[in-house]
């Protein structure tokens, strides 16, 4: 439900990075989203589109990579991917675990076109 706020934060970060790299345009943004992050990829894509209607991100593409949920067994330390509930450790069958992955939302990378030496935006 907070995808738009998340996307505003993401775009502010992208613009900062783009400025630092002297970018004339940002063509692509890669984001990774964990299975337990409570954000809906469709809502993220929609917010991205809505928030990149103009400026150097206009028309940029958003790629969303999905990260699995991961649990670590309290009994034997084995880490395993969470596919369905209830969980039990594939190594020792213990039902006691802590979640160690799947809640993250990471800005992975951006593809940008640098400003030409003449100072104008390149169409690269």
């Amino acid at each position, binding site marked *: *439900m*907070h995808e738009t*706020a*998340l996307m505003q*934060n*993401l775009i502010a*970060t992208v613009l900062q*990075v783009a400025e630092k*790299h002297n*970018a004339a345009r940002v*063509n692509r943004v890669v984001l990774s989203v964990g299975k*337990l*992050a*409570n954000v809906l990829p469709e809502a993220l894509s929609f917010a991205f589109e809505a928030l990149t209607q103009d400026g150097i991100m206009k028309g940029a593409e958003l790629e969303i990579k999905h990260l699995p949920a991961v649990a670590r067994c309290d009994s034997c330390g084995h880490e395993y991917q969470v596919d369905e*509930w*209830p969980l039990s450790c594939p190594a020792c069958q213990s*039902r*006691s675990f802590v*979640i160690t992955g799947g*809640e*993250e*939302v*990471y*800005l*992975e*990378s*951006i*593809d*940008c*076109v*640098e400003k030409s030496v003449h100072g104008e935006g390149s169409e*690269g």
Partner: protein
Amino acid sequence: MTRVDIKRDLDALNKQIAAANRALFKSAGLYVINLMGSPGSGKTTLLENILPRLQDHVRTAVIEGDLATENDALRIRKTGVTALQINTNGGCHLDARMIENQLSRLDLAALDLLIIENVGNLVCPASFDLGEDLRMVLLSVPEGADKPVKYPTAFLNAQAVAITKTDLLPYLNVDLDEMKRYMAEINPKLVVFETALKGGVYEAERLVAYILEQVRQKKGK
């Protein structure tokens, strides 16, 4: 074209502020509960009823989170407990910065227990650490037995659950044992409490005793 690798956690700022809040709570010996649950699950009603019993033993304050109005803070203040109201203006959850902004309004050293009532929502609040010691989810009987498997993250990240409105069980087609089974499927470590309103009395003795014990343990450290 240039690829710039960034690898930045978009939740990093919230995690950082939550850690600072937690350090502040620790130095003040203050035990903090983040209370979450759907709208209407009975969060404010629970507080109205347990606060006078808690207040007899520990110095308590409440932070209320809602999209709009000061209604909940007004209800809490009637119990004699200090209550601050945060309005998120449409925001679906509280974050660590909102809590940090309220802390200067409280004398933390003069408190033992702070209860934060999150925005009514079983989804988003689960993704935002506020710096609390205990996450407690409220699930009311009328919401249905299978909510824990439908909304797993709220239950995964919690340490305790209070099942509220158990007095309504005779009138509803909801199986309490099934609800508890679903909770244990998602998170076998959950401590589960039940509350009920019977003959005008709000029953929550085990929950009150549990909170008092947790506060006492933190003070003792």
